[in-house]
Structures are given as C-alpha cells and as structure tokens.
C-alpha cells in the first residue's frame, strides 16, 4: 500500500529524479550554480556566476572564437571586427603603424548586422494606437505585479546601433555603479563629462524618474546610421576590442530601460537586474536564484552557425561534426541551485547534471594519476562513459610581498635576496600536489599559458628559482636559498638585530580547521630557512583593510584574466596601480621605474616580436626583484557525460551554451539504468521492526493480564 501511494507521486521509473516526468527525453541541458547571481544588468554585472547567464542572453558586438587558440575575436552581432583608425592631436589620420606616442585618438567604427531581433518582451509591445502597451502602468497595475507574467503581450524590434551607444551611456550613470566606469572614463571621450551631466539631471528629477539617455551627448560614442556606430577613445588601447566582447558593451534597448524605470516597479523587484532583455540565443524565462534559473531558446535568435575551423586536433575530437549547423542546439538550460558539493556530485553521478567540476572530496573517486604522472579517469567513471576535460586557467595565484614593508619590501639588495630566498623555499610543486590534487602548474612569471608573452620550456623558466635539467626546470636547492639569505644578512635565518630567528608575518583569510594543514605547511616552508613565520589569521574585510593601508607583510592573492592580453597581468605590477594610496590592483605595491616605463610602452602595442621582447625584459625585471613568489596557475578539471557533445574549455568566452549538443534519449536510458529503486533493504527494515514489535506486544499483554489478575 505504501508503494501504491508513493509511485504515483513520483510517476517516473527513477524515483530519485529531481525533474518532472514530462522533461524526460527533452532537449534540456541540466547544470547547477552555487552562488546566486545578484546583478543581471550588463552595465553592472562583473562576476563569473552572473556571466554564465547574461553572456548567453546579451550580445556584445564581438565574441571569442569557440575553438581557435590562441583566443581570437570574431564578430557576433557586428559584421566584422573593426581595425581602429588613429588620429593625432590635430585630428589628422595616422597610418596603422603609427607610434603610440603620436596617437591622440583611436576610432572604432562598428557595423552591425541588420537581421537581428530582440527576444519577445513586454517593453516592446504596443497597443492599437501605436503607443507602448506597458510603459504607463497605473499604480494599481504595478502594485499587483510581482513578475512579468501578467504582461502577456510581447513584441520585438530590430537591433539598432543606437542600442549599443545607449548602453555605453548607461556606464556613466552613477546610479548603476558600473564597475568599469572608472576605467572606461579614462578612455572613452566625454564619458566623465556625461556622468556629471546625468548626475546633475538626476538631481532635477524625481528619484525614480526615467532619464532618456538618448537626449545626452557623448562625444566618444556616436550613431552614424541604424547599423553603424563609432567609438572614439583617447590614445591607443588595443585591449578595448576585448572589452567590447564583454556584456558591458551589449546593446540595451531604451524601451526596456524606460519600461523598468516606471515608478513603483523597483519596489516590486522588477528591474533590469532581474529581467534581462537581449538578442542572444537564450532568454531568461525563470529567475528564481533561490532555486533555479531557466534559459529558454530565444525564438527570434538570428542565424549563427557552428564554427567550421578550430585548432589542430579538434576534428579528431569530434568538435567539427556540427560545422555549419545552426545554433543553438539545445532548447532549454536549467540551472539548479546547489550550495553543497556532495549533492551536486552525487546528482552528476546519477545523470541529473550533464557536466560537473571536481571538488577535492570527490577527486580520488573521479581521477587517478598514471605512472607517467598524467591524469586519467578512474575505471568507474570510464565505465559510465564520463569524459574528463582539463585546461589551465588564465589566472595566477601568487604569494606576494608588500614592497612597502621595511623587512621584506623595497629595492635594497638585502630585501631582494631575502625575497628570492623565500621564493626558492616555498615549494609550490608540493603545495599543488598536496592541496590541489595536482591541479595547477607552477608559475614562472606573471603571465599564464595561453596569453601572448608566455613562453614554454627553458626560455620561459624563472632562473632565479629554477635550474634547467634535461627533463625540465628543477627548483633550486635549499642550500642556494640559505646562501641568498646569508647574503641578505640573515645567516642561518638569524636576525642580527635580535639575535633570534627572523620573524615574518603572513596574512591569511583562512581561519577554519580546513585551513590549518595549509598554514602548517606554509610554516614548514619557512622553517627550512630557520625563519619563524607568524600566521595572522583574519577575516576578509580586515585583510582587505590591511592590504589597502599597507599593513600586510606577506599574503596570497589571485587574478583572473579579463581578456587574453599580457597587459591584464602586467598591470598587476605597474607602479601607479599600487593598492596603497591608489586603490589599484597592484597588491604588492611594486614600483620599478624601468618596469613602469616598459609597461607603458608595451600596453598599447599590438602583438609582435617587439612586444614579446619588451615583455621578456619586464618578466626578467620582476623575476629578479621578486615582488611575488610566483605561485601557480590553476588547472581546471571538469567532467561531462557521454551524451553531451561539442564541449571544449574556453576560458575567455562565457556564451558557450549555444554550441553544446546532447542526446536526450541516451540520457534518459542511462538515468533509468543507474537509478533503479532498490527496495529490498526497506522490506528487510520493515520485517526487523515487526520482529522487535512482536515481543513488545507480547510483553504488554502479559503485563495487562498480570494487572487484571
């Protein structure tokens, strides 16, 4: 009877299936997110957990080629990736190869396709009279709205160049707190002035009133015609094209901004941060970040086809099978909130998620190391047809020295040798092996693999820390580190001022028991030099305070690339970008005039042998000065089921959902095979309960008989 009651509730062959039976066999990709997205407005969002959604909804003019490496920009809504045209101070056009110092302005003219429509949305809907249907909602209508579902009439319109310019103007609206406003105002002509104009105008209007940004002039962004717009920036800034491949530069129809600016909608939680309006392959149909987010195929999506070329080996891996076919392949993508790793991992193994990362707890279950040190899947994973994808992230996790610190900082010979000695001593190979299950490669400098300027092999080795042997770089011995320490004035690690072992301080935000092993390991590294390491465990807020005020001595920090250019890593060591005083991203507060000069020279250059030569020199300088002990570049491991196709790690692109294809029938059959209910233990448990109950009932009856005499 119990089974008879339960089976209709579940209604599926696999009782533990978290999805409705009606979804079985559907062309749906299942994924998860661990952290709820806070901002979906493309002017505000700057976080990877938000980009996984909005990058598939909003379309900037350019995108990264899905398969090609090194990462290459291709048109998305644009007709072509434009070449900038350079002008001098007198507005005279300069040749393409003009020196950066001569270039006063760069002009990008972007022509977009004329066949692109927005997703269906109520903000475009019009009534019989031709007026916008929902742009003047009454207070009563607004009070009854908690989502957009009651606004049943939707419409679309063609993408215009003006929508891109509108979005650029939105970056200057201080009410939106766009994270790139400060940077962009240094480049886009007139953006700073526009911010002031908007701010002044807002003071004249009601707090929530709509401000038509089309009425404001922006000297650096002009609409030339319906499908062409022009951006004018100060100087030469080749990385600007990469920025234009990010959602910050996606189009925003003014109708949407106007619709969401209606007084009262903000109070009803109906904002652009919650409801996206894009031209991309998917549209957000369910936004419940406490439970799930659903992306549904955009019925108005323009024609885009799967790429027909990639890097060597892609064809062999089956990544070109779908070349030329229309995108996207998948109808719906359901992201479920999974805060904990254990349920996420188990659901992946049960077939309820199509892809998964590998946490430290499940690493041994999924991956083994071969005799040659390579990684491979375990037999269980292979039996289930699971595939492993690995890639080195365009990120650096480093151990930093505060260059303003009187002991480890500064450019004196003493401090430099001390830093070099510590750089040799901290065995990052061991750290990667113990604490990251081998998921990382030791950094030889600031630039990670895959970014222009990175060098493989002996040419890319850091000679301060490594020696080259036949089979690769080998960390210098502790004897070398001790020698350097001695030359720094700390013979055997003794501080001559105190006569005791040198005392150094390491700031750590890890304060839990799980961090203890890592911190103990760090202490042991310094023990090798007889240096006493004091761990200053602190919360993240205090840690940031110390970093801003320069009170941290040594620390670990990291950086994820915004775009595939060495400038995005080298600027982490650029003097004017110091954290102390300038609130920049140079956490070590490193400031070397020669490095700064070379950076200024390199940052505006196109990739060329000359740029490589300058980068080599810069890398040599920082290796010698050692403001960082270079740490490592994390290696990402991800797993996917046999029914998912066309998956290739792309560390720059976030709009990759459109390329995936899946075999939903294979998934359904595998799920049923892997999740057949096991009932015998339940039956045994019921029998056991009955077996316990029988003597208890008998005892009760005996007791009652005794009492009644």
């Amino acid at each position, binding site marked *: 009877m119990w089974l008879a009651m339960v089976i209709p*509730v579940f209604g599926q062959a696999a009782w533990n299936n978290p999805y409705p039976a009606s979804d079985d066999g559907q062309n749906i990709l299942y994924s998860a997110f661990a952290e709820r997205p806070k901002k979906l407005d493309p002017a505000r969002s700057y976080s990877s957990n938000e980009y996984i959604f909005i990058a598939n909804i909003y379309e900037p003019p350019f995108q990264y080629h899905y398969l090609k490496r090194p990462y290459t920009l291709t048109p998305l809504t644009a007709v072509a990736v434009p070449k900038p045209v350079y002008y001098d101070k007198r507005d005279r056009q300069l040749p393409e190869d003009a020196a950066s110092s001569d270039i006063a302005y760069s002009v990008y003219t972007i022509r977009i396709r004329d066949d692109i429509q927005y997703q269906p949305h109520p903000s475009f809907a019009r009534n019989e009279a031709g007026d916008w249907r929902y742009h003047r909602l009454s207070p009563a209508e607004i009070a009854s709205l908690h989502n957009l579902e009651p606004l049943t009439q939707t419409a679309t319109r063609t993408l215009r160049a003006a929508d891109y310019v509108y979005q650029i103007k939105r970056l200057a609206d201080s009410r939106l707190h766009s994270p790139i406003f400060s940077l962009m105002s240094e480049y886009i002509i007139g953006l700073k002035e526009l911010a002031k104009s908007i701010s002044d105008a807002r003071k004249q209007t009601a707090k929530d009133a709509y401000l038509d940004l089309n009425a404001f002039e922006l000297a650096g962004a002009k609409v030339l015609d319906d499908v062409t717009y022009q951006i004018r920036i100060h100087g030469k800034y080749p990385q600007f094209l990469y920025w234009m491949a990010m959602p910050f530069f996606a189009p925003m129809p003014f109708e949407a901004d106007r619709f969401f600016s209606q007084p009262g909608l903000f109070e009803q939680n109906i904002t652009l941060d919650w409801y996206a309006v894009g031209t991309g392959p998917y549209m957000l149909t369910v936004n419940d970040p406490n439970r799930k987010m659903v992306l549904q195929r955009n019925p108005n999506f323009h024609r885009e086809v799967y790429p027909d070329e990639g890097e060597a080996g892609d064809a062999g891996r089956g990544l070109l099978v779908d070349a030329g076919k229309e995108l996207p392949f998948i109808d719906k993508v359901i992201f479920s909130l999974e805060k904990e790793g254990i349920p996420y991992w188990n659901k992946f193994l049960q077939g309820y998620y199509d892809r998964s990362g590998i946490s430290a707890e499940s690493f041994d279950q999924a991956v083994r190391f071969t005799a040659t040190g390579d990684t491979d899947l375990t037999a269980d994973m292979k039996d289930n047809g699971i595939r492993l994808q690995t890639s080195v992230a365009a990120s650096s996790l480093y151990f930093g020295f505060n260059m303003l610190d009187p002991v480890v900082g500064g450019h004196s010979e003493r401090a430099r040798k001390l830093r070099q000695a510590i750089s040799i001593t901290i065995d990052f190979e061991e750290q990667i092996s113990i604490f990251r299950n081998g998921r990382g490669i030791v950094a030889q400098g600031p630039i990670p693999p895959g970014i222009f300027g990175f060098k493989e092999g002996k040419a890319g080795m850091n000679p301060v820390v490594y020696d080259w042997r036949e089979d690769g770089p080998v960390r210098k011995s502790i004897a070398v580190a001790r020698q350097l320490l001695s030359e720094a004035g700390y013979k055997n690690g003794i501080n001559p001022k105190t006569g005791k072992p040198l005392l150094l301080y390491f700031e750590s935000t890890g304060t839990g028991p799980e961090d203890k092993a890592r911190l103990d390991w760090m202490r042991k590294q310094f023990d090798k030099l007889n240096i006493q390491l004091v761990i200053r465990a602190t919360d993240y807020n205090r840690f940031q305070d110390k970093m801003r005020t320069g009170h941290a001595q040594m620390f670990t920090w990291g950086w994820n690339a915004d775009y595939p250019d060495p400038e995005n890593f080298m600027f982490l060591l650029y003097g004017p970008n110091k954290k102390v005083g300038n609130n920049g991203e140079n956490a070590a507060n490193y400031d070397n005039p020669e490095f700064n000069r070379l950076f200024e020279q390199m940052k505006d250059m196109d990739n060329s042998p000359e740029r490589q030569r300058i980068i080599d020199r810069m890398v040599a300088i920082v290796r010698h000065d050692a403001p960082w002990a270079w740490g490592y570049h994390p290696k990402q491991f991800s797993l996917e089921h046999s029914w998912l196709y066309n998956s290739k790690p792309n560390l720059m692109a976030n709009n990759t959902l459109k390329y995936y294809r899946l075999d939903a029938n294979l998934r359904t059959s595998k799920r049923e095979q892997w999740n*057949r209910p096991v009932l015998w233990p339940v039956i045994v448990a019921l029998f056991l309960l009955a077996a316990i109950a029988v003597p208890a009932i008998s005892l009760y009856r005996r007791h*009652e008989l005794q009492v009644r005499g």
Partner: protein
Amino acid sequence: MIAYIIRRFFYAIPILIGVNVITFALFFVLNSPDDMARAQLGVKRVTNEAIASWKADYGYDQPLLINTQAKGLAKLTNTIFYNKSIRLFVFDFGRSDAGRDIGYDISQRMWPSLAIALPIFIIGILINITFAMLLAFFRGTYLDVWGVVLCVVMMSISGLFYIIGGQFLLSKFLHLVPISGYDDGLNAIKFLILPVIVGIIGGIGSGTRLYRTLYLEEIHRDYVRTARAKGLSEFRVLFGHVLKNAMIPILTGVVVVIPLLFIGSLVMESFFGIPGLGSYTIDAINAQDFAVVRAMVFLGSVLYIVGLMLTDISYTLVDPRVRLS
C-alpha cells in the same frame, strides 16, 4: 489575559530595541560600510568614488549611532542605526543592500521553510511522545535499557551526519528520493520526504529521552496509582492521564518553537537546496547584507517573544490552576 498580553507587548519593545542595538553593533564591528559596498560592487576595479557613491545611494554615508555634526534630535535620527532600524517596528523591512524588497522575499521564502519544519515538528513530536511512552511503559526492561542507550547514541551524533547519511542511503544507494532540490506545490513532496525523515530521525534521540524522563516523574504519582486501581488499561493510564499531566513541561519546549518554524533551518536548507529563510539568512551573512541580517534577527526575536507568550497562554489551557495576571 488581555491585560497580560498587552503588558507583554510593551515589555517586548525594549527587548527588540536591545536586540537591534546588539545586532547593529556586532555587524558593524565586523563590517564597515566600505566593506559592505565592496561586497556589493565586486572585487575587481572598485574605486573609492564608486564606494562613496554606493554608500550615499544606500544610506550608509551617515554616522553609525550618533551624528555629532547634527543638532538636537537629528543627532540621533541622522544616523544609520535610526534610519535602518526604526521602520522595523512597523514590520517594514525595507530593501536589501542588493536592492530587493525584503518583506516580499520573506513572504516567498517562509513557505519552503515551513514545508520542512512543520512535518518534522508535528510528526517528530508524535513519534517522540509515542517512543517515550513505550520506554516508560517498559521501564526497567531490556527494551527500556537498550532504548535509552540508542537515544543517547542518536543524540550524540551530529546533525550533519544524518543529512549526509540520509542522502547517501535513501538517494544514492536505494535511489528512492531526490538527493536535493525543491519544486512548487505538490511537486515539492518528493523533495520533502528526505529532509523530513532526516529531521525526524535526528530529533528522536533527544526528544524521546526528555519526554521519557517527564513521564517517569509522573508515573509514580498518586493519581496514576488511583487510575490503575480503577482497573484502567496501562494504555489509557499513560495516554489518558500521564500524558495530560506531563504536558506543561512538554509545552514549555514545544510551543515556544512554533513561531520559529518560519525561520527555517540553516544547515538543512543548505544541504537539501530548500529555498527557505534559513538559506536566506546564510546568504545575507555571506554577502554582508546588513539589511537582510537585521530583518531576520528582528523577525526571529519577534517570533521568539510571540512563542513565549503562546507558551504562557497554553499553560492556562492545559492546567486550569494556572492563571495569567
């Protein structure tokens, strides 16, 4: 009784002010308005101007407790504490620092919390009372001894173990229920089975042991002997007389938590992916969202006070000798 309730209502006001002050002080000892701005603006490329602008927009650009620049009453009212706290007393929770209407979010998220907490609460109490009665009935026998041992073992095990063990056994090994997740309406049932079972089993040890002790205190009293002498069955003695008289201490522990069922369980909701108020609070703490933390602490305090009042009232219902004055 009405006068008693009104008096308790006025007593609650200074308590709630005190709770607010303590929450405020604890929060701002650990998080400055600048930290909060950074948490909302992101970790990359955050400028001082952006931080100042965020603070101004969200009302965190004022002094915390006392505005020395202001005059008169404005010294107190032109402060973050006053502006962020005073509306709570009319249950206007305002907006979260991420911009969402907190009152609406609470109204949406309390139902999933309740969907787990209510069955655990009701079924758990019934099971605990029954098990405790059985142990009291079989007192002194091997069933009682091993029952108590089992209770001690069960209450010694971490709640996390029950959660992970339940997920492993019922979902991963037996494939009977989804391991985590949630859905609307009746579709939620299959997601609730596992957390409810885990919640009930996790509470059996302590609940049964407590109630058994209460029953044993009652079971030797004269009225029980009289009932037996009248020839009543042991079942009727226990459930008809002992249970009724043991209700006062049981109510003390039970009624007070009824309002708190809305607040949800922090760990349980996180592990089972239940979008309730427990996970709402945890998310707010992690995101340094003071507005939500303050609202949830205030709500928890109000519900606790309501729970205590309900407990007092319930005494009068189960024991006619008790009068509220």
